[in-house]
């Protein structure tokens, strides 16, 4: 019966009790350590790629994982950010390039989202595919914005307040700083009403609307936000690689980003970080199989996706849950304690983080 002797619900809202912020701190420290431990140009190359693709994947997590928009456009915005940053910085400091990437990507993403606002899931997906294709051609042909054939060389390493990040280590720390920021901003979203609204939107737009969720604003906002993450990643990519061409941003990238997220786990903000690590690291490990690499890689990805619907995060969850079960006796299921969840949603009684 209502009101009588039900146990009191917990005093703190759930967003107070999760550990994403601790996770961000741990990630930042880990990246710092990695930057110090790695000592080969090759190793730094992998590290830099991992950092950039993690940011790219995080953006896609917002677009697809959290708000359920099946989009192939992430790669295109990655490229757009890269070209926009070169065009905007044009001999000036890196910050101009960053600003250019953010502004151009956000505006184009908003425009595109408005054009296709009346389309449903399937048409939306195809429209993003078309957008990616258009982007590739524009990168190649629109020379005033990009360059002849879309190939740009000699992009300077990033600089900030007259310090240039041109060593492997300093660049890794620089990119790591951006990843930490991206993780922090994403964690803030996880710890806010936006997260539950986006999930409601993802699961059932119509019912969400009848409940009062601002579905149009959410749809546009998440898409623009996630695409802007891609733009920032593109800017970083351009300046870390020194060279960009339309081939770097082909449609295959848009598809690969899907696989990054699904592999890592679409239900968690840490999924893209894990997925990016796998995508950057695995091809190296598979080198020994020589020409069968692409085939095995493709089949492996599909097998993981089909067998582990929650991705690598699902594996981590399994291990974590096993560990918890070993350390604690089983407790009653109902009652005001949330089920065990790893990294991003772990529950500890009495951990009053308030940010």
């Amino acid at each position, binding site marked *: *019966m*209502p*009101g009588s002797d*039900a*146990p*009191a*619900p*917990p005093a703190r*809202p*759930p*967003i*107070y009790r999760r550990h994403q912020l601790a996770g961000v701190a741990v990630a930042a420290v880990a990246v710092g350590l990695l930057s110090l431990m790695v000592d080969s140009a090759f190793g730094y190359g992998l590290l830099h790629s991992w950092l950039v693709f993690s940011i790219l994947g995080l953006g896609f997590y917002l677009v697809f994982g959290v708000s359920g928009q099946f989009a192939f456009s992430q790669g295109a915005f990655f490229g757009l950010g890269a070209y926009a940053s070169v065009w905007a910085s044009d001999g000036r400091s890196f910050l101009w390039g960053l600003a250019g990437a953010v502004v151009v990507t956000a505006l184009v993403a908003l425009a595109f989202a408005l054009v296709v606002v009346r389309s449903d899931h399937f048409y939306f997906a195809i429209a993003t595919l078309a957008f990616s294709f258009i982007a590739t051609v524009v990168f190649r042909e629109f020379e005033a914005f990009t360059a002849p054939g879309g190939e740009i060389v000699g992009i300077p390493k990033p600089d900030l307040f007259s310090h240039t990040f041109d060593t492997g280590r300093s660049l890794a720390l620089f990119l790591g700083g951006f990843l930490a920021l991206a993780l922090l*901003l994403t964690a*803030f*979203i996880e*710890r*806010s*009403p*936006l997260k*539950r*609204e986006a*999930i*409601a939107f993802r*699961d*059932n737009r*119509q*019912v*969400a*609307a*009848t*409940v*009062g*969720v*601002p*579905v149009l*604003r959410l749809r546009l*906002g998440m898409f623009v*936000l996630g695409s802007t993450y891609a733009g920032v990643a593109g800017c970083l990519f351009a300046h870390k690689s020194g060279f960009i061409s339309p081939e770097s941003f082909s449609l295959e990238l848009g598809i690969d980003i899907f696989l990054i997220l699904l592999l890592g786990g679409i239900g968690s903000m840490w999924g893209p970080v894990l997925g990016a690590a796998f995508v950057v690291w695995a091809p190296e490990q598979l080198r020994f199989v020589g020409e069968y690499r692409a085939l095995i890689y493709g089949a492996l990805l599909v097998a993981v996706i089909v067998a582990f619907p929650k991705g690598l995060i699902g594996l981590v969850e399994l291990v974590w849950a096993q560990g918890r079960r070993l350390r604690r006796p089983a407790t009653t299921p*109902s*009652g*005001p*304690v*949330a*089920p065990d969840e790893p990294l991003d949603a772990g529950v500890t009684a009495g951990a009053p983080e*308030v*940010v």
Partner: protein
Amino acid sequence: MLRAEDIAVAFGAVRAVDGVDLVVGDGEAVGMVGPNGSGKSTLLNALTGVVRASGGLTVDGRRVPLSRPQAVRRAGVARTFQTPQTFAELTCIENVLLADADRRATGLAGAWVARGPMLRRERVRWSRAVAALDRVGLADRAEDEAGLLSYGQQRLLELARSLVGEPRVLLADEPSAGLNAAETATLGRLLRDLHAGGLSLLVVDHKIDFIESVSTRVVVLQLGRVIAEGPAAEVWRNAEVVAAYLGRSRAGA
């Protein structure tokens, strides 16, 4: 306080709702019945912006656009669905929090920049949500994912979610469907309590006893039109109503 005028919904050539006028007075509890396919659910969908419809909706004297679900909700019209539409991956309390009327600082600004105010409001929203869950008896399941609840509990969760926005009128679509006798009785009690507390009701259902227990006036729909209206006892005696349910030849005999 809720006035629907000439509501019409067409699916191709089929007019599922064919010019319905409906009034729910302030503090009134109205029941709606009708044979399958009479357009009851479609009418509710029309009123809450889920399907495209023509006609007018006035709540508390103000016109509300039929095509905008959020505007309808803001005007104080809450609804539940024929099958409980809860968000399985969110916890019960998160489900309820979604519907809170205070929408300030729920966006990106609140998440990134104005975290202090956002968290303060969240605390208040939280206590309102807990109260709503408590009202329907689900306070102890607050932290459980909605997908783990039983069918009857999901109905209650949906009800709690409707209540937290401080609605003026609740449109309930076959709330007793799928519930056993005990659960139906609990639901009826709950609805009567809410009505006594000032909530206007429009309850669509098939169970006659249940309708009679929660409403004072009954509207009968058939093939998208209102064919009878009035106190329950009168309505069941109406020849057209009998014919609608049993078929013409029987009624004529």
